[in-house]
């Protein structure tokens, strides 16, 4: 059982820190603008990014604070919007039947999370993949079958089965501090990687996949995020089977590694397609997927790690809708 309920010190701390960082960033950018230390183009870019964060942060933190249904609703919407970006980037949208199959799968798997029906939640991955595998066969158009089925299965894994683990976590009474930790840790993981890479330089990590990433940045993020996650997770999991320093370090490594892997996965997708961003809905950031790529792999990895030692919502009623 995890820590305390709503009003947990970690919940309050993360919300206050996120608001504080936003205000501090505004003050720094304001100061730089006032003293003329940045050129107008960079100033505009910085304000644009800050404005986007000012909209994104409440949209990310708000549902977590509001409750279980809000979290699962937000994860469903995020999954569908990510699917839209992905299908337009890969061309899957030209196969509306397959895109509709994935969208239905995303809705179903999030419904299973909302119903708190773990067996169905788990069963939906192989079942949806099976449906997607046969869905386009009646069209009697074998040309392109492997491509459209492969793209659809990949999409369902990423935005349905994978991301929905984030919503399922909300079935635990004490989900708030953990979800807030994950949402902020994946963002800070990127900041650590960027800062360590800039400070230390050195050889590139995977230059053909992502030319700006360095080995030092990846290792810096791994160290920084692991320590940060382990320290913040300690009060969350105090008194649970996860309350051992090496297990909390393991959690930190998983968050940092899966976060960076998700980032590199999206870079691989974009390089393969020959595009820079997945979309243009978030000014200064690109698409939703450019912002939330790290969460895609972190969600299932952390869910099953924490689930193995602690479990989620074990004392909560199950099948609350289908009864």
């Amino acid at each position, binding site marked *: 059982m995890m820590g305390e309920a709503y009003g947990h010190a970690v919940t309050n701390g993360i919300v206050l820190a996120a608001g504080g960082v936003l205000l501090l960033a505004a003050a720094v950018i304001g100061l730089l603008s006032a003293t003329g230390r940045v050129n107008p183009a960079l100033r505009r870019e910085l304000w644009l990014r800050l404005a986007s964060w000012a909209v994104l942060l409440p949209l990310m933190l708000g549902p977590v604070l509001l409750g279980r249904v809000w979290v699962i609703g937000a994860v469903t919407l995020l999954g569908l919007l990510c699917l*839209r970006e992905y*299908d*337009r980037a*890969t*061309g899957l*949208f030209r196969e509306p039947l397959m895109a509709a199959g994935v969208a239905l799968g995303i809705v179903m798997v999030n419904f299973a999370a909302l119903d708190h029906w773990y067996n169905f939640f788990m069963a939906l991955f192989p079942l949806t993949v099976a449906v997607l595998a046969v869905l386009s066969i009646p069209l009697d158009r074998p040309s392109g079958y492997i491509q459209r089925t492969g793209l659809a299965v990949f999409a369902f894994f990423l935005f349905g089965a994978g991301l929905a683990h984030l919503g399922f976590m909300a079935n635990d009474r004490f989900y708030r501090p953990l979800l807030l930790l994950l949402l902020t840790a994946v963002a800070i993981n990127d900041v650590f990687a960027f800062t360590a890479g800039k400070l230390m330089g050195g050889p590139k990590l995977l230059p053909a996949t992502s030319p700006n990433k360095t080995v030092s940045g990846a290792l810096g993020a791994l160290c920084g995020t692991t320590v940060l996650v382990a320290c913040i997770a300690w009060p969350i999991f105090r008194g649970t089977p996860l309350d051992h320093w090496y297990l909390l370090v393991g959690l930190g490594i998983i968050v940092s590694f899966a976060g960076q892997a998700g980032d590199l996965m999206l870079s691989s997708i974009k390089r*393969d*397609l020959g595009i820079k961003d997945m979309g243009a809905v978030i000014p200064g950031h690109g698409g939703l997927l450019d912002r939330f790529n790290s969460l895609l792999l972190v969600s299932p990895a952390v869910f099953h790690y924490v689930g193995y030692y602690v479990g989620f919502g074990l004392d909560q009623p199950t099948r609350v809708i289908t009864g």
Partner: protein
Amino acid sequence: MKWELRPARDHGLTPAARLRSSGREPGLGSLAIATTWRGAVRTYLRLAHSLRVDGLEHLPPAPFVMVANHASHLDALTLAAALPRPLAHKAFALAAGDTFFTNTPVAAFAAYAINALPVWRRHTTTGDLDALRARLTVDGAVLILFPEGTRSRTGAMARFRAGVGALVAGTRVPVVPCYLAGAHAAWPAGQYLPRPGPLHLVIGPPLDFSGTDRSRAGLIAVSDACEQAVRALNPAQREGSPE
């Protein structure tokens, strides 16, 4: 094994810019809206205008260009609604950019409901025409256009402009001539809403311009042939008296 990973033509555009892009490609959401809208328009045309369609058997497989006389806002709605379903989902009506795409809510309606693509009258560039040709030859789309350039204020057909030739001359994309009768009486320019009245759409056999070159003379030959074919479909003229 051939993989073809082709992002949407409008990929990377902001939502507002996407509405105004001639490369706009509808996704799942657009398809759902367009299907609902098409059902509503078909019901309306049947009930309020007793729409009669002749010559559906002339429609070739996509891609093709539909050209028709233009006397009313009902024209594009009727032509798109008359197409059978697989073709209807590939059909884009070319609409005046200065009328339908300057205001974002109107542009959203034109894009999502009517599946319109903007044409900027007197400002169309070679790039714009190449983009529209690619929609036909690469995407296999159906383009609905009104070569008169604007709605007739009297109901009488004006001369066709040469634009249609620039899209199809020298390609294997056929042009399907159509004549819509009754639209001017039902919803003339200047009237706020349509009033009930019969509509009769006649679809003619497709015209082939694969052997026509893209010279000025070639483009005029295409528009003249299209105009002649559309005029010949006028049901009133076919019965021996002008409408």
